[in-house]
């Protein structure tokens, strides 16, 4: 009986995780190194990877900054009522509960070219939907809870006594944050950042809806894989997928390391 369960677990694990990765690697190299390199060296691939990289960098910076700020406010601010805090706290989880495609759709409905807001921005010369800003907003929406959910519990756990002690010793809010709060939360922030990068790199649904998947313009690595599969260009699709998978694995290893550091203090 026990063997059966172990066997079943291993089977599910390999069917879900191991075999697809091997299959992708095999698919990428079915024409040898040449096919793999050709798939990656196409100008559309390079542009798509560049878009993905750009989105990841911007989203990670914005998300880390505001994620940490929001966590601080939600845990520490005395000027926010408890009811308001609870409300905000539950709204933070909204992206977890809502499908990314719906999230993207919300952005299109709110900021699309046909809407008042969208038209306003359009007049000012800024395209939001079917352009980079919309894709960044969509990815931000999807990744927003990741940093907050990592940092908030730790802030709650360490309590405010150390920060109060710093204040009575004459430290300004800024000094207190950098010298007292930050050392306690930094590994959680790193963990949250790694999760954000991984999620931003792999985001598909929300980005597809808001980007329109326009070649050489708003196409990201994931949407290019989708298009290549549609066009039966499987070798190229597998090559890009393999690059993305390799990136994710590296991040996961980084995450394990961050996790072990987090437990030290």
């Amino acid at each position: 009986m026990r063997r059966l369960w172990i066997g079943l677990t291993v089977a599910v694990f390999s069917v879900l995780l191991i075999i697809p990765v091997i299959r992708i690697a095999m698919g990428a190299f079915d024409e040898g190194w040449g096919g793999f390199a050709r798939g990656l060296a196409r100008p559309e691939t390079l542009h798509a990877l560049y878009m993905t990289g750009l989105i990841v960098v911007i989203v990670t910076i914005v998300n880390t900054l505001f994620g940490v700020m929001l966590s601080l406010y939600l845990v520490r601010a005395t000027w926010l009522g408890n009811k308001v805090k609870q409300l905000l706290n539950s709204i933070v989880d909204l992206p977890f509960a809502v499908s990314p495609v719906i999230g993207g759709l919300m952005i299109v409905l709110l900021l699309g070219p046909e809407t008042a807001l969208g038209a306003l921005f359009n007049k000012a010369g800024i395209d939001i939907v079917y352009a980079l800003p919309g894709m960044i907003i969509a990815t931000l929406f999807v990744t927003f809870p990741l940093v907050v959910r990592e940092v908030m519990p730790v802030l709650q756990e360490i309590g405010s006594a150390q920060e109060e002690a710093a204040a009575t010793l004459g430290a300004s809010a800024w000094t207190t944050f950098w010298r007292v709060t930050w050392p306690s939360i930094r590994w959680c922030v790193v963990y949250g950042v790694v999760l954000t990068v991984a999620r931003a790199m792999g985001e598909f649904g929300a980005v597809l809806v808001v980007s329109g998947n326009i070649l050489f313009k708003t196409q990201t690595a994931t949407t290019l894989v989708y298009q290549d599969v549609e066009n039966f260009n499987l070798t190229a699709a597998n090559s890009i997928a393999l690059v993305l998978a390799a990136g994710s694995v590296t991040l996961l290893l980084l995450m394990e390391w961050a996790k072990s550091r987090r437990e030290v203090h």
Partner: protein
Amino acid sequence: MHIEVRGLNKKFGDFQAVADVDFEIEKGQLIGLLGPSGGGKTSILRMLAGLETVDDGDIVFHGKRVNDLPPQERGIGFVFQNYALFKHMTVAENIAFGLEVKKWSKQKIKERVAELVDLTGLSGFEKRYPHQLSGGQRQRVAFARALAPEPQLLLLDEPFAAIDAKIRHELRSWLREMIDRLGITSIFVTHDQDEAIEVADQIMIINKGRLEQKGTPWEIYKNPESPFVASFIGESTIIEDVSALRGFGGSGELPGTKALIRPEYVEIGKEHDFELLSATETGRVRHIHFRGSEWLVEVQIGAAKLVTYRSLEKEILQPGDEVRVLIHRAYLFNDTNSWVMENKLKEDPMPVHI
């Protein structure tokens, strides 16, 4: 630092944490804020530190109103209940923090840290992290850290609560000595009356957000101004009908008057132990408890039950023994008044002069 507090009020939602508290503290004194948990002591301390906003009233340091000053600018040192040491900094770094923030020179910081490490007996522990220290050592680091920037006022929130009983005694006398040596005005919060009585120059009894009484430990013990203070300081039993006790006849004229009698007001013994038998009552021993250094005896007199101490050197009593009981005094109170009454029969009515 001379401190004055006038009409201090603080509410948390609907809960009145501090209500109309007034007091004044002379420079260099060590004050104990004593009272039951949740009575508002810590709120008062935190308002003095600027960690809590004041709803109403004034806090005046050295003749200057500080209500709107942030904690950074009040020139105080605060020792937190659980020390709140910076856990990722070593002992030396913890102590140096306040000095670095104030931009002291490297050399001066080094000297000051060495001085405080020496003063608090932490030599050899400078490089340790807080989690590598014992409770007593952490407490001393917290103390050194608070003192480092040379504050004018030291505030301590339940400084010994998290330390085991034996070390607590040592630390208490150490703290007292240290504060005497530095001459710094200090206020500490405690719910432990022994601690307050032993350490403080003056005690302020806080109950339900109100200041019940302020005075030296001896004054508070001797002349409690309210039934709460009388029952909170020392051990005591409440007697409903005190006029039934010998020597206190006629005291129950006012309806609703009750008496509070401390164990040390009561003496028990055999007939030959007393010179004035007429002032004593007959009672019966109900229980005896060994208290380590003395006996605690419960004795029944009519309907009243009293407790008293008895020296271990004296003859050991047994439950059921008949004894003579002398009540020296009682603390009487009713809804409006409270007063101390001595046993009227203790004065020999017919002194024999030889």
